[in-house]
């Protein structure tokens, strides 16, 4: 892996001179709390051009995340963003650019993709944009897993147009009717020479911290009291070719509560009840599981090998009374057997052999795979075990098809850029759970842990009562089933005051079990965090039910207290009051991203990409990347 010294440099397509990257770095800071993360992402832009520069950077949101606001800092100015309806924000940005002010626009599009546009960076100027995000985490009984996308994987869409404009550089365009004016970055197979990334995060688990580890990055760890720590990148800089993943573990799996009174005099809280608190239901009943394996082109190499290993590990964990099915999909879905079969040793061997013949190719028609699996499982509650990198676009359509299918989906995300945001939604919205593994991790452990959940909730008919909490109610409906290793999460609000208790009931065999959980509302900062995360969840859930461009979408006011976060029908915009013109003309640049580490180099080729021979037309690309 190149360190940034060799490989590619950025050339100005018009002059043939080496140009400096307009985006120099991305630095992630913030705090990871037991209920979620409050993040500040700093983007540094610098223009080496002789004319004003407009730069567009594209990135993907983490799970359950919302863009809150941003701040721009430059030589002699400091501006804050304002949240406005898309059209208004766009008008403000355009006006600012035309009049010569430094203008910035951040807009969320489908699939949680964001375009950050910075216009009129003056020659030689250094501009820093600080984006404020709230993001969800992958909750575990004894801690959490945090993931931040440092790269934006190209995602399959049947109408996408993809080309390899020269060896190692690809471009992708998505249909405008669905994605509006979203601009995707140029994709590079080599991360050398791209912007640098780094992070410095504080962690506060609220209970005694056992370990913090990362399967993706080398960490520098500094303890900060018994419950907290700071982690940062152990080297000076890194390349953006994989997501950041942090595993935070507490000494013991206990009930965690974050709550407090917010500025609007209402209290918000999030309570996590570990699955172990619900006891064990034995003996385990037989189950029917259909494996849904993504064998699309983007899975080629390590991801597909990992996916196969995951299926094999699960096969070993099935009993002879269980029934199984297997669907591999790319553009079409292919069945192992036309009906579910019992897990006899012979059938398992047959499936193992079948598995060997599965090869990566074609597009990612995930909805087709899910529909085929549901049909195979027949009526009733089917459990689907989906193994995919989730590199698909228009995820809202897949979500609505999956909800309608009526099956419970458990998702195992594979690869350095598995779409965590989407796979989390896919599992949650269908009543299942999700996990992901990075290319360096053992896939069998994660697969088995997740597989233990398939068809076997640890507690069902879970109900939460707020009677012992004055003014208490759930902001988001809590899950009705609890799965092993995954805590029950209750996000709610209550009257300002001393708090109270939640009463949780569930079916334990033929009897009802009961648990009282105290809710403390004594920390205003926790309350504010809980409120922001609830807002982000509401927006994410609501957005997952929409599709297409925002014409006719509801105004932001729908979320009342949460309207300060940015859903796709709102944008944040900011302009300086800096009279900068009159400018002769501007240059334009987009910050390229690299292909994620685990992706086969030209993944886009397998989705029907055309190769375009180099010609004068391509060399006119601004800020084009050339190998040096």
């Amino acid at each position, binding site marked *: 892996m190149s360190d940034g010294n060799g490989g590619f440099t950025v*050339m100005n397509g018009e002059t*043939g001179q080496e140009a400096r990257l307009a985006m120099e770095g991305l630095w992630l800071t913030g705090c990871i709390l037991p209920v979620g993360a409050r993040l500040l992402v700093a983007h540094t832009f610098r223009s080496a051009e002789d004319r004003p520069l*407009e730069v*567009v950077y594209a990135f993907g949101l983490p799970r359950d995340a919302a863009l809150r606001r941003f701040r721009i800092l430059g030589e002699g100015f400091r501006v804050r963003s304002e949240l406005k309806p898309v059209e208004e924000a*766009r*008008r403000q*940005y*355009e*006006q600012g*650019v*035309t*009049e*010569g002010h430094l203008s910035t*626009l951040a807009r969320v599009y489908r699939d949680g993709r964001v375009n950050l*546009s910075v*216009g009129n960076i003056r020659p030689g100027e250094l501009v820093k944009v600080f984006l404020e995000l709230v993001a969800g985490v992958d909750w575990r009984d004894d801690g959490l897993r945090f993931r931040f996308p440092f790269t934006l994987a190209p995602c399959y869409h049947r109408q996408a*147009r*993809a*080309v390899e*404009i020269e060896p190692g550089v690809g*471009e992708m*365009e998505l249909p*405008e009717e669905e994605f509006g*004016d979203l*601009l995707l970055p140029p994709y590079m197979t080599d991360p050398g020479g791209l912007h640098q990334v780094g992070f410095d995060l504080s962690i506060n688990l609220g209970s005694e911290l056992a370990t913090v580890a990362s399967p993706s990055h080398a960490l520098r760890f500094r303890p900060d009291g018994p419950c907290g720590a700071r982690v940062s990148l152990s080297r000076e800089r890194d390349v953006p070719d994989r997501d950041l993943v942090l595993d935070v573990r507490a000494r013991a799996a206990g009930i965690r509560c974050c709550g407090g009174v917010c500025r609007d005099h209402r209290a918000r809280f999030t309570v996590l009840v570990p699955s172990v608190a619900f006891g064990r239901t034995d003996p385990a009943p037989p189950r029917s599981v259909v494996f849904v394996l993504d064998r699309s082109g983007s899975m080629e190499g390590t991801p597909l090998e990992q996916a196969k290993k995951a299926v094999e590990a699960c096969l070993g964990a099935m009993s002879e009374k269980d029934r199984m099915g297997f669907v591999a999909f790319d553009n079409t879905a292919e069945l192992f057997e036309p009906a579910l079969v019992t897990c006899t040793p012979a059938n398992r061997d047959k499936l193992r052999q079948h598995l060997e013949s599965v090869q990566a190719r074609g597009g990612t028609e995930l909805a087709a795979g899910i529909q085929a699996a549901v049909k195979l499982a027949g009526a009733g509650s089917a459990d689907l075990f989906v193994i995919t990198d989730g590199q698909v676009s228009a995820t809202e359509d897949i979500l609505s098809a999956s909800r309608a299918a009526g099956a419970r989906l458990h998702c195992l995300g594979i690869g350095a850029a598995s779409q965590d945001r989407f796979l989390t939604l896919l599992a949650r919205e269908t009543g299942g759970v999700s996990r992901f593994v990075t290319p360096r991790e053992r896939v069998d452990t994660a697969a088995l842990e997740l597989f233990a959940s398939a068809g076997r909730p640890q507690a069902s008919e879970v109900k939460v009562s707020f009677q012992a909490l004055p003014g208490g109610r759930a902001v988001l409906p809590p899950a009705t089933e609890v799965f092993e290793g995954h805590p029950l999460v209750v996000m709610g609000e209550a009257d300002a005051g001393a708090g109270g208790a939640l009463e949780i009931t569930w079916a334990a065999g033929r009897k009802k079990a009961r648990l009282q959980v105290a809710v403390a509302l004594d920390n205003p900062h926790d309350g504010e965090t809980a409120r922001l995360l609830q807002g982000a969840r509401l927006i994410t859930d609501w957005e997952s039910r929409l599709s297409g461009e925002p014409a006719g979408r509801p105004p932001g006011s729908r979320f009342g207290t949460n309207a300060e976060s940015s859903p796709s029908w709102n944008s944040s915009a900011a302009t300086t009051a800096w009279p900068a*013109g*009159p*400018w*002769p*003309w*501007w*240059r*334009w*640049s987009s910050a390229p991203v690299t292909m994620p580490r685990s992706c086969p180099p030209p993944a886009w080729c397998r989705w029907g990409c*055309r190769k*375009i*021979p180099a*010609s*004068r*037309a*391509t*060399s*006119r*690309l*601004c800020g084009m990347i*050339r*190998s*040096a």
Partner: protein
Amino acid sequence: MAAETPSWSLAELADRAGVPGRTIRFYIARGLLPGPAKPGRGAAYGPDHLARLREIRDWQSRGLTLTEVAQRLAGPSRAAVPLEPVTWWQYQVADDVTVQVRADASPWRLKQIKNYLAQMATGLRANEERKEPQ
């Protein structure tokens, strides 16, 4: 059509074409669309820009990527005309090795290729010298 003098601002052009201003600037930077007739704050656009924008949209709707659109706009595709003469430079790297390089490659590319050819020549020479004493 071109007789009319360009007088629209970028916002007006954007409204008429139904294409966001940011996208129009992106097209201009990529060479798909000519820049404004008048530079600076009073940048003006005319019917030619509008016609070109519609042409780009039309090609896009037929499945062409912007890079392909740019190639079409640049004139008849060189790749599609097989009979067009192409000049090649021939470099003798060693007594028994010659390499051909397209003469119309861009200056930076030629510089890069020459650099690698020099490396190759040095490598081959070093190999020869190692062999000779044996």
